[in-house]
């Protein structure tokens, strides 16, 4: 783009006054300076664009990271319970909802683990579980809200017949209540659009499932 200007100044060279305030040099310096400023400005803008996401993404002790890690743990147990019910429950509707919960929550684990990778964070945190929740939710024996104890899991694995349905429905009901409690805490503290979107979907899904689980509990009473 400087070529026309350059060619244009050439005829002026002949008539240019030898004082330093000549129009042509000024114009030439001005053009060069302008070009350099534009290039530097573009580079700065580009660098800013590259660096900004790195500076604003959730950190290692953020609510978002805590939620992704702890909800992964929470979901993992739901998947285990659901697959037991899918394999051994008596009522077909129970097996149906079980496989739905298992695959749905396993998929959400995948999404949350992807967030952590994209944020450059480890799937394992250095803070104790639930420490991101400001309402001081308690962890009992390493268990987050609504999680089943090892004894309850053993009992579910050993159950036979309709007892599988009954135990699964109760455990999953409590599990969802605890899960919604954790989701609400995350929703209250994050403004990360992606986390909000996924957490809201989780909450809606689990609330509808609570109704369905309650209905099935009535059915399983026999």
């Amino acid at each position, binding site marked *: *783009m*400087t*070529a*026309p*200007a*350059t*060619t*244009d100044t*050439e*005829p002026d*060279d*002949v008539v*240019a006054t*030898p004082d330093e305030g*000549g129009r042509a*040099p000024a114009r*030439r*310096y001005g*053009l*060069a300076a302008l*070009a350099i400023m534009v290039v530097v400005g573009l580079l700065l803008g580009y660098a800013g664009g590259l660096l900004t996401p790195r500076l604003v993404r959730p950190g290692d002790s953020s609510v978002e990271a805590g939620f992704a890690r702890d909800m992964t743990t929470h979901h993992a147990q739901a998947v285990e319970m659901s697959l037991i019910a899918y*394999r*051994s*429950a*008596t*009522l*077909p*509707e129970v*097996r*149906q*909802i079980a*496989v*739905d919960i298992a*695959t*749905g929550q*396993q*998929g*959400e684990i*995948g*999404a949350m683990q992807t967030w952590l990778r994209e944020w450059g964070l480890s799937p394992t945190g250095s803070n104790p579980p639930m420490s991101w929740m400001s309402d001081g939710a308690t962890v009992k024996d390493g268990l987050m809200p609504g999680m089943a104890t090892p004894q309850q899991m053993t009992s579910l694995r050993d159950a036979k017949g309709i007892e599988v349905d009954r135990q699964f429905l109760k455990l999953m009901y409590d599990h969802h209540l605890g899960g919604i409690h954790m989701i609400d805490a995350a929703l209250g503290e994050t403004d990360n659009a992606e986390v909000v979107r*996924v957490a809201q*979907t*989780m909450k*809606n*899904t689990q609330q*509808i499932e609570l*109704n*369905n689980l*309650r*209905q099935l509990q009535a059915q399983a009473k026999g």
Partner: protein
Amino acid sequence: MSISTPGGPERRPTVVSTGKKPAAGRPASGAKAGTGKPAATPRAGGKGPRKPVTPVKVSQGRAWGPIALFVAVGVLAAGIIGYGAWASFQGAKPWDKKANAIDGIVNIRKTDKASLEYESHKSGPLTYKYSPPVGGVHNAAWQNCMGDVYDAPIANEHAVHSLEHGAVWVTYRPDLPKDQVDKLAGKVRGVEKMLMSPYEGLDKPISLQAWGYQLKVDNADDSRVDEFIKDLRVNASVEGPTALCNQGVTATGTTPHELQQQPPTQ
């Protein structure tokens, strides 16, 4: 490229300073070197040995050739960059904005949200406000929606559950010509979160459903069919993108199937 200077194509424009001219005692050679570089770019090949040639005075000669070329290249570059930016902006538009832009689509999430809400799964036949239905209460079991092409009508009560999981349900009037049916089936077969079935009593030859959305068209060649599928498949899921489409009911018939009790697998 040819630069139109009088004197034939082998005459290079001589006004480009080579630094060999006595420059009227200006210490501007540094600046000239700076600006001289870009100035040299429009000169294509044929950079022979540089001979100091006296500039030909053309009447206030602006070299229009290079200017025109620069402008052309600039406009082209701006066009390419602009189009790329526009296309990526379009591609990044949220799915619901794209869906709402489809001509003739009915957005029940906007117009009648209450009809989509429900308490919990229900067994047995259910009544629906829209035909074919686009949401609301449904059976505990979903219709298998792994690109299944059903050759007979299926139960609304299962299909609505598939919609909840993010499936697009393609329905057509049973009298739709076979080549049209085949064309639709080609868009469905083998694609997860898709299912297709004939539907009695349709007021249009073809109707597409997603959870809370409906589009009726006359012809399988209508480009809006592909748009609807592209914008709403998976996106319209109420339970996120990984809701299940397998392990569903694969039987046809408009009465909802009560799930069969099977002996648990060992």
